[in-house]
């Protein structure tokens, strides 16, 4: 891409927004209460989780509703070491990481031959199996009582410091994802979304590609899991129920699926609806449901899609191809291919 184009109005606005967001992220802890800071931390972790889901659901067009299984397994890995052994932070994170990636490998092997609506269904089953294990293996998971006694690393113990730690990790991961979706592998995923048969005809082993996708996506879900378990300092089967897997998908669709900024925005909206608006509005679930419905009806491509469409129409008609700094160019909603 030539440098002139990179300096277009759209790009400049995007850059300004990005810098603005970064600055806001840096100074935030000094202006808001520690409760809001906790919510922002949670939103950041959720955003990372939602991006990991979006890599599959948005880029590859394979909607997973079982990703909390990977996230949760990583959480339980950390929790088990912290709660049941005297392992230090390094061991906790290592075990959490290995656990999460193991789940990703198994999920990948199970689901790599499925596509379309059946992919959704097998991932639901995967998530529910992890939930079943979490409820069944009392000695490892503590079942309903969960695993207490998880503590953050000493030097990032306070909510204030943990926020910065999360911010840094999520930023690095976002950057990594930014590269991933532009890499050859990222392109192959987009091909999967377009037509799996076609991708196969071009010489891709689509099953292996999907397996590989689980590893890459699972990596980010695992990181999110490790961040989440230290944020909550607790893990329990509710972390892996169906709803926990559905939320990141909703976040991605709400914000704008197939983009990286979309899940980010969606995560903030949903986290604040669930945890902040709910403090003020008794019927917050109705409000959340209505938000989903209205977004679908009036911003079919999610919030990011709507804003970007408005921008291109009103402000920058010429600069059609580029959307957002963290945002892939395509604007068309992919229609998931299904079978009957």
């Amino acid at each position: 891409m030539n440098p002139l184009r990179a300096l277009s109005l759209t790009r400049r606005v995007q850059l300004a927004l990005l810098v603005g967001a970064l600055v806001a992220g840096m100074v935030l802890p000094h202006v808001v209460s520690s409760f809001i800071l906790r919510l922002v931390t949670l939103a950041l972790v959720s955003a990372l989780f939602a991006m990991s889901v979006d890599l599959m659901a948005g880029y590859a067009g394979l909607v997973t509703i079982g990703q909390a299984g990977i996230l949760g397994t990583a959480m339980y890995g950390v929790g088990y070491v912290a709660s049941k052994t005297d392992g230090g932070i390094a061991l906790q994170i290592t075990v959490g990481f290995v656990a999460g990636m193991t789940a990703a490998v198994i999920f990948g092997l199970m689901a790599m031959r499925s596509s379309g609506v059946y992919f959704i269904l097998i991932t639901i089953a995967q998530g529910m199996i992890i939930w079943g294990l979490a409820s069944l293996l009392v000695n490892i998971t503590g079942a309903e009582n969960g695993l207490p006694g998880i503590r953050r690393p000493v030097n990032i113990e306070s909510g204030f410091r943990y926020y910065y730690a999360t911010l840094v990790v999520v930023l690095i991961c976002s950057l990594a994802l930014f590269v991933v979706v532009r890499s050859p592998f990222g392109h192959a995923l987009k091909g999967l979304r377009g037509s799996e048969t076609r991708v196969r005809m071009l010489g891709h082993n689509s099953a292996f590609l999907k397996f590989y996708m689980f590893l890459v996506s699972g990596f980010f879900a695992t990181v999110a899991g490790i961040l989440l378990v230290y944020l909550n300092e607790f893990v329990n089967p509710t972390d892996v129920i169906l709803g926990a897997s559905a939320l990141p998908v909703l976040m991605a669709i709400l914000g704008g699926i197939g983009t990286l900024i979309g899940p980010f925005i969606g995560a903030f909206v949903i986290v604040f609806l669930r945890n902040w608006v709910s403090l003020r509005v008794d019927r917050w679930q109705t409000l959340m449901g209505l938000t989903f419905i209205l977004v679908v009806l009036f911003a079919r491509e999610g919030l990011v899609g709507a804003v970007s469409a408005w921008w291109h129409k009103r402000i920058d008609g010429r600069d059609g191809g580029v959307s957002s700094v963290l945002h892939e160019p395509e604007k068309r909603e992919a229609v998931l291919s299904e079978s009957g």
Partner: protein
Amino acid sequence: MRKTIRKWIVLAAVLALVAAACGDDSSETTATTAGTTATTAGTTETTAGGTATTTGGGADMFTELKIGVILPLTGGIAGPGADARESWELYFDTNGDGTTVTTSNGVNITYVMEDNASDPAVALTVATKLLEVDDVDIVIPGILASTGTAVGDALGERTDVLLLSPFSCNDDFTQRTPLEGYARPAGWSCSQTGKAFAQWAYEEQGYRDIATACTDYTFGYEHCGGFADAFTQLGGTITEQIWHPLGNSDFGTYATQMNELDVDGIVGLVVGGSAVPFVTAYSDFGVKNRAPLLAGVTTLDQSALRGMDKEVALGAIGHSHWSEGADNPSTKQFVEDFEAATGKIASYYAAGNYGAMEWIVAAVEAMSGPEWTPDLMLETMKDGLVVDTPFGQQAMDDEGAMVFNVYINEIQEREDGKLWNVPIFTYENVDQYYGRDRDEYLTQPPYTKDFQGTGVGG
């Protein structure tokens, strides 16, 4: 920047402490100032938590106390959550102006209530909000054991907050691995009531062979374990233990299995939405005709009875520290008030929250001093305080667990046709080790699926 702020805070704290120390031996007017300063020092010490203590008008008594209540107002157990909410509103309406209750010694108690959506992760976020934004002194951590555990764990290191839970009944919270700064006013230990129930079954009914059918998780293990352990110690036999999964709703399979048992009675425990289908299956499959249902607390609670068919539940035997039909003045009063306010017969969840509030008020009224601290309040509660709650008279043991009456209830039809629990036998002053020596008891492992008392199984 942040560091500078911190430096200033520390500096201010040191200055304040010095000022406070100076004030100790000064005249009364200075003492007031000193008191205020000392409070500031307290705030700085726990920058995040804060404290309720403010000395107003120079009295030697703290004046404000704030309670943070976390309840499941949405999600799977929104029913009990609604009862709990209504009981808080009832207490503050009856004894105050709806938002504030003023104790006889002039302390204004207020409360903030938040929804945890029946989810421990949300409960944790809400707990942060209550502590950081609302600056509460006491946290009531919801109804589910999981939310209780999560919040309890998060507050474990906070010395400035008191955790009071009328519902999280895990034995070890007040036994082998007690939680710091924790008590369960108007609450109970999961295995506590079953011990008295076993005595009733063995001695009063002459039952010798009993089977259990409890929910397959900690509450079920401890509840059934309490019964099984005590029953076998008395000389009875536990012939079979069926465990059904949490949240199960089709009990056909288990009812069929129960039908094959040749026992004097079956001890059943289910929670939440499982209660109605469990009791219905027990009756409809004819298990009822072979062995009476001996149910635990949540199984025949009002929150379940309201949705239950009459014929199904009538005559079932339950046991609990709560009995809405009990002939106590305090129980009667509460049930009457609650029904007048909500049109519902009070459930165990309503009584628990109301009782917890009565405990808090009683403790505050027994306290004195310029500063409220969790330790002081806990000590006051444990120090021979006897409180008239909807459950009847209750006291707290040294470990923060309750000593109370256990009622053996029968489900009867009230004059207006509604079902309710009416006591047919009462065990008074049941403590959490009922009938056992504490030290000997604590050498046992906690009750799990594999350990249901020394006399059960192998």
